[in-house]
């Protein structure tokens, strides 16, 4: 009886020891999972697709070099459809069912204002790679939310500089009727007035619905008001539609300065081709041709070889976010979400658009956009190139933490 018991005890001990040895190893073989939430359907689905390509490239590169902390990286992408409630459900699925360790994404400011307040419940870090509403690192900021891409504050400060230098006096806007459109105009107006107090910010503005198909009435009403300068924050498939319809109505033949805040997205440039008019000012969070550092050169080369097209800013943002997670996990020595979140704050690393660090005060990366005039077509790439190019330094365009209203 005692002999049996002792044998049982011995085998039990051995198995426990074996488990203790094997389990961490099994853990070590467990891949690190990243979850991405992007717009994969509808008028802006190309953005999600390009982001996916950026993530795939980064993950493959990292895995080929041994992974992160000896573990392979995996990722899964969910479609937000541009809707906040869909994105929240997708985030819950990624965190609780697919057990991802970290999140990245968000192609829409509307989605961001919905998802960002929920992050403390999900207890995973989120790196925003596209959505630009200042609120995400402003009044809605929390310890789990970071942003690696240029936000509305930064882009509109740069736009205000371009506008001030252009000499135009009467400004109006055509923007999508949601947070991004309204906030772009709000911040642009504020910064432009600071630079040039004598400009007139017209009452006649146009905010067509996001996903609107027929811009003709809005184009007509803005043309009738006869501005000198127009700020256009329409984006995605809407911008493609808008440009084609505006061309037909003679919008670009007028003597006006036209600034498209995110016009140099390769998603838009390749859809329009020659239809993008020359001479308009196009902004972008990242321009593949504007950064002369080894990381960018390697990135652009690898991306073009694989996908046969220059990387868009959405692809670069997603790519950089994956590398940011790698750096944070290595700094923390673990993929544990809480430790990674700690490590991300005040992390500095090399991204294609330069040396990036997340500001401790609001978790916003101090980066600047690139603006350029639409110039000649490049037949290899199938898009218009930018010439001249103005790249803005992060420090010059980022407002202070107090101004953003973030209290971390």
């Amino acid at each position, binding site marked *: 009886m005692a002999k049996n018991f002792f044998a049982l005890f011995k085998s039990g001990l051995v198995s426990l020891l074996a488990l203790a040895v094997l389990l961490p190893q099994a853990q070590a073989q467990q891949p690190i999972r990243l979850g991405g939430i992007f717009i*994969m*359907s*509808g*008028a802006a*689905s*190309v953005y999600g*697709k390009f982001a996916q390509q950026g993530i795939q490239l980064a993950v493959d590169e990292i895995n080929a070099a041994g992974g992160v902390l000896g573990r392979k990286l995996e990722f899964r992408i969910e479609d937000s459809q541009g809707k906040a409630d869909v994105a929240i459900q997708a985030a819950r699925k990624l965190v609780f069912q697919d057990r991802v360790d970290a999140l990245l994404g968000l192609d829409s400011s509307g989605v961001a204002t919905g998802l960002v307040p929920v992050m403390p419940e999900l207890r995973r870090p989120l790196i925003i790679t596209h959505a630009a509403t200042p609120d995400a690192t402003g009044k809605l900021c929390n310890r789990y939310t970071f942003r690696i891409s240029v936000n509305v504050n930064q882009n509109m400060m740069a736009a205000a500089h371009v506008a001030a230098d252009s000499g135009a006096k009467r400004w109006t806007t055509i923007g999508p009727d949601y947070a991004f459109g309204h906030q772009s105009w709000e911040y642009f107006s504020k910064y432009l007035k600071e630079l040039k107090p004598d400009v007139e910010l017209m009452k006649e503005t*146009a*905010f*067509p*619905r996001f*996903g609107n*198909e*027929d811009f*003709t*009435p*809005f184009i*007509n*009403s803005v043309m*009738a008001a006869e501005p000198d300068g127009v700020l256009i924050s329409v984006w995605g*498939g809407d911008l*493609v*539609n808008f440009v*084609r319809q505006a061309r*037909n*109505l*003679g919008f670009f033949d007028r003597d006006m300065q036209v600034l498209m805040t995110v016009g140099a997205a390769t998603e838009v440039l390749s*859809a*329009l081709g020659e239809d993008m008019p020359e001479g308009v000012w196009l902004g972008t969070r990242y321009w593949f041709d504007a950064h002369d550092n080894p990381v960018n050169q390697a990135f652009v080369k690898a991306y073009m070889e694989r996908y046969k097209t220059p990387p868009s800013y959405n692809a670069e943002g997603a790519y950089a976010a994956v590398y940011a997670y790698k750096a944070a996990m290595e700094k923390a020595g673990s993929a544990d979400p809480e430790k990674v979140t700690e490590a991300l704050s005040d992390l500095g690393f090399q991204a294609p658009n330069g040396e990036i660090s997340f500001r401790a005060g609001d978790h916003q990366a101090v980066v600047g956009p690139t603006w350029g005039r639409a110039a000649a077509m490049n037949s290899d790439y199938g898009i218009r190139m930018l010439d001249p190019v103005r790249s803005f330094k992060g420090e010059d365009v980022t407002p202070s933490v107090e101004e953003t209203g973030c209290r971390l």
Partner: protein
Amino acid sequence: MPSIIAALLNSLDIAMLLFVIAVGLNIIFGVLNIINFAHGGLYMLGAYFTYTLVGRLGLPFWPALLLAPLAVAAIAAVLERLVLYRVYGRHVTDSLLLTFALLLIIDEGVRMIWGSGIHVVRPPELLQGRVNFAGVSYPLYSAFVITSGVVLLAALWALFNRTRIGRVVRAAAIDRDMAQTIGINVPAVVTGVFAFGAWIAAIGGVVAAPMRAIDPGMGDKIIIESFIVVVIGGLGSFPGALLGALVLGLIHGFGGRYLPQINLVLPYIGMALVLLWRPHGLLGRRAAA
């Protein structure tokens, strides 16, 4: 004055496009007594086939205008033979639900075949550029849209009122059993009418393709618009489709230009007002229950 002309011209090209879709809906309702939710999907298929023919295979626009609607009509005929005939004689909500199911299938099918993104088709060389009209610079292609709408209107009127086929179809619409009795092959007429309605919807899709973005949501958007047109003008009424399309076109053109704060609400207010005041539509006749 020029801005009013601009809004008016904009209204007209929207109206013509809506008319093309709504008239097919009305023809199908008149003969089959079915409200075809899938009509938006057929329009969308017309646009997507145009993209494949012109954008991918490099055909010029004019052959595509001929081929794409025929392909859609063929698909519609198959759908009618296999699926739709089962709900004839049943409650009208059954046909609403079944055609809604078909719309879901077409929507997803389009996503599977052509992807979820948007596609772009350029107008034919002949129709690029602008024309000056009453002090307003107007895109030539929009003028083409208005003209084709008018041509279609005239052709349909002639077809239904002056030809033998037209009389046969009208007979089948008025009294199906009687038509069968005097030797008209009613099932064939029914299939033919459904395919014909689809053909017209697809023409709308082909014509719309260079004007608007081609995306998987375009079917859903247009079906709601065409319901509004048909409700305002009157279910089953041919001139009603024209009147409804003009009213909705004007609401879009002028509402978007002068009342942007409420331009999304206006069409539904119009729809509701007509339903409350004259449920059969401004020019409609009673729908069979």
